């Protein structure tokens, strides 16, 4: 990463942590919920969320759910356990192999062909979402999101799967900022150092699948999104046109994942168009 971008994206850790802790406390208290629940994968994003949640609410008001599938890397579960042990936080392990396999056993037979890895991966992400929202009702807990800004912008996630949540404390942090804060709050070293992976199939890594590194993505996204540079202006900074175009395409093509469903306007006041209230209205 260019030093000037790295400097610009570097966060004052105390200030950022104070803001994020206050955000979690405030939003949970306002909503009338008692605690938060989230999926803990063994990756860096959900590990950071775990540390933030415990800092904000105390461990007794948090709950981590570990949801391995049979092909998940064993290291993922080990790393997730390292987090819950370090934080001594309440947690439950809910394997998702049986429900996901039961679904595909039925649907593969109905469709007459085996599901692609992409469909299986999406189903796993949504199975986890269903589990978390069930725990939400059981524990009176808000679901915390664990998607970072880089993923959200690139659309590198499953709609209504890992992208679904009630509150997302890390959704405005680029991947490099997630790393910085994770380091600051004491996320275990094994998590900080491993290659990021959605772990939906064996040996998957994010950067291999995306075709560029997170550092490259963060840099280009910083100019395109935060600084509103055009493609040409970004390329003029020395980034390859192929990289910048790819990033732009991903951001645009995945806008649908970041929006609520599109509603056909008929009446004078339409949900999502000119019926405008914050969610806090309902609190």
């Amino acid at each position, binding site marked *: 990463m260019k030093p000037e971008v790295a*400097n*610009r994206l*570097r*966060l*004052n850790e105390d*200030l*950022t942590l*104070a*803001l994020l802790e*206050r*955000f979690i406390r*405030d*939003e949970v208290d*306002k909503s009338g919920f008692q605690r938060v629940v989230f999926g803990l994968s063994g990756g860096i994003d959900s590990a950071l969320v775990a540390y933030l949640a415990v800092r904000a609410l105390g461990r007794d008001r948090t709950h981590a759910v570990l949801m391995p599938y049979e092909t998940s890397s064993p290291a993922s579960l080990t790393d997730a356990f390292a987090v819950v042990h370090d934080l001594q936080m309440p947690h439950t392990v809910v394997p998702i192999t049986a429900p996901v396999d039961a679904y595909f056993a039925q649907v593969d037979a109905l469709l007459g062909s085996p599901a692609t890895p992409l469909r299986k991966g999406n189903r796993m992400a949504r199975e986890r979402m269903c589990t978390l929202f069930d725990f939400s009702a059981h524990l009176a807990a808000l679901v915390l999101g664990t998607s970072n800004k880089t993923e959200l912008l690139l659309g590198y996630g499953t709609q209504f799967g890992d992208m679904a949540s009630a*509150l997302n404390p890390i959704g405005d942090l680029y991947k490099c900022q997630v790393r910085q804060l994770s380091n600051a709050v004491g996320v275990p070293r094994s998590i900080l150092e491993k290659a990021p992976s959605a772990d939906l199939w064996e040996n998957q890594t994010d950067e291999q699948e995306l075709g560029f590194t997170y550092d490259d993505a963060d840099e280009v996204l910083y100019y395109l999104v935060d600084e509103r540079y055009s493609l040409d202006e970004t390329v003029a900074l020395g980034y390859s046109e192929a990289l910048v175009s790819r990033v732009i395409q991903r951001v645009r093509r995945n806008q649908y994942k970041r929006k609520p469903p599109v509603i056909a306007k008929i009446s004078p006041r339409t949900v999502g168009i000119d*019926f*405008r*209230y*914050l*969610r*806090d*209205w309902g*609190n």
Partner: protein
Amino acid sequence: MDRLQVVLAQLSPRLGDFEWNLDKHHEWIREARARGAQLIIFPELGLTGYQVQDMTLDIARPLIHPQIQSLIEASREIDIVFSFVEETSHHLFHVSAVYASEGKVRAVHRKVYLPTYGMFDERRYFAPGTRFQTFSGTPAGTAGMLLCEDAWHVTSPYLLALGGANFMIVTASSPARDVTDAHYFGSQRFWRELLRVYAQTYGCPIAFVNRVGVEDGISFFGGSGAVSPEGDWLFTAPTVEEGMFSIQLDLRSVRRARFSTPILRDERPLLVQRELERILRQREETQCDWAPNSQPEGERT
């Protein structure tokens, strides 16, 4: 009276819950009186919350509304600055701040600059105010009020200073944004620079009260405080945390500062007026944008 005891009420209003916010105002006013303060300042839209959007119709109040009157009544023993969505008799909705003293309204400032860009959408719901009017009868003498974005336009404090303000009150609902490696949020750093320059330029103490709390993911940074006429931040409240903060302003410092650095004395408002008229006339004639000496599109060679 050379010293002004002020309480900066850095509160976290509940969005749309007028009753709850009003109770909190009364509670804090009682506490400020008990502390011996002469003035308590609440943040912009402290009675309603900031992003009221379509709740505007439900939470707007005319000045004569009993809830507003209860605050004015409470000003018999301490001066109070509070802010809410004001509905006029013609049903315009303004972001307003009231200065109440001795059970009366001394001044109402209606926010002139309604930010409608980026994350802000105020002009969609509110009507802009039309003046920067100073008022007398405060413990600091003549004063002026600005609401948040008003203070991001350098002409606003200029007009208040020419209007005779010896004290400026700036209330805000300013979000925490642009976190960098710096000690302050990007938005907060700009505020600190602006108010320092204004106070020093016009030899005028400024009290700044910004709210805290979170509305749908947007945090308000707090960081209320006061700047001396010499341009020093005398006090800065913590970021993000709610609280009442007592400060003391030395009113004699205005006299010293304006003698030492008499920039306000040397202002040339009639010259400014002439130059503005000329500039505006030329803009009108050439329909040019801000570029100096720019030619109309068709005349470029």
